[in-house]
């Protein structure tokens, strides 16, 4: 048991994925564990090598999909709980603005890894963002390049086309799950015009949620952060 927890804990702390299989009922010791890492390495056993082999074949695709569920094996009559532990998705906030301070705090509670990016040191200061997982002092387009996957969410919040537009160019070419951009309807319309002129298609531009956030009548930076986070959850939970 302790060995199992040490391994699981290390994987989670290091931001690596891992799947565990637990014998829930059937022949053997309830609670017996088998662990599988994405590189194919394993640890432990449910006490039946034939079952371990079949289980590992079932676990591998579940680990890739981040899926968890019970599996019944009629032979030898075992019920096994397979659980995938995948690193939390990241929320990238472009712009160390007031809204980002509140959004980072709320997003962390909801389960995101939070990253704030700004090239301006007065904005991206450790004093303002002691509560984020990662604070990046760099040009947003350079900081985001190559870092976005299909679970990433991006909120573009600087209000400054010099910072926002280059960031959006990178984000629109990525598989990011959520893209939101702060600004009034007219600011957003001008932003879309600029990006359109650069050759982005309507389908690509339609990925941007703008003006950002669900319409809840938000006024304060904290309320706007709440509306953005609510929209992100809505997008994540939609099929």
């Amino acid at each position, binding site marked *: 048991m*302790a060995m199992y927890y040490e391994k699981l804990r290390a994987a*989670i702390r290091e931001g690596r994925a891992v799947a565990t299989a637990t014998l829930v009922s059937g022949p053997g010791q*309830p*609670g017996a564990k088998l662990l599988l890492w994405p590189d194919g390495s394993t640890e432990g056993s449910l006490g039946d090598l034939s079952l371990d082999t079949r289980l590992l074949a079932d676990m591998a695709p579940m680990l890739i999909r981040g899926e968890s569920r019970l599996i019944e094996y009629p032979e030898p009559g075992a019920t096994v*709980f397979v659980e995938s*532990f995948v690193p*939390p998705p990241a929320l990238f906030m472009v712009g160390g603005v007031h809204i980002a301070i509140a959004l980072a705090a709320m997003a962390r509670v909801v389960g995101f890894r939070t990253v704030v990016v700004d090239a301006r040191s007065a904005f991206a200061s450790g004093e303002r963002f002691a509560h984020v997982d990662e604070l990046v002092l760099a040009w947003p387009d350079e900081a985001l390049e190559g870092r976005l996957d299909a679970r990433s969410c991006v909120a573009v919040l600087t209000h400054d086309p010099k910072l926002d537009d280059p960031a959006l160019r990178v984000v629109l070419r990525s598989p990011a799950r959520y893209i939101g951009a702060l600004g009034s309807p007219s600011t957003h319309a001008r932003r879309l015009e600029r990006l359109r002129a650069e050759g982005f298609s309507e389908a690509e531009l339609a990925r941007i949620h703008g003006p950002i956030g669900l319409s809840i009548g938000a006024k304060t930076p904290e309320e706007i952060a709440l509306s953005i986070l609510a929209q992100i959850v809505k997008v994540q939970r939609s099929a």
Partner: protein
Amino acid sequence: MHEYLDQIDTWLARGERVAVATVVRTMGSSPRQVGAKMVVSSGGAMAGSVSGGCIEGAVFEACQEAMERGQARLLHFGVADETAWEVGLACGGMIDVFVEPLT
């Protein structure tokens, strides 16, 4: 699980034992998804949840028992389940919770 690591480490550093309860199956309406967890210390502290608050009391007791006996077990909670456990889910769903000692 990542949200409970700091808590678990604190308990272990204090020399307490820890049990973990995990929702392994849900049927019908249920407040928490498969994989939802509640962690309990032998000192009587808890974190997380496996339902909307309906069955946490019973799961807490089962966790204490699992730590004392060093044995894992599967619990079943349903709206009409009066045999093994006297608590049920007000929402009418059914859930299976696996309780295991971590140490």
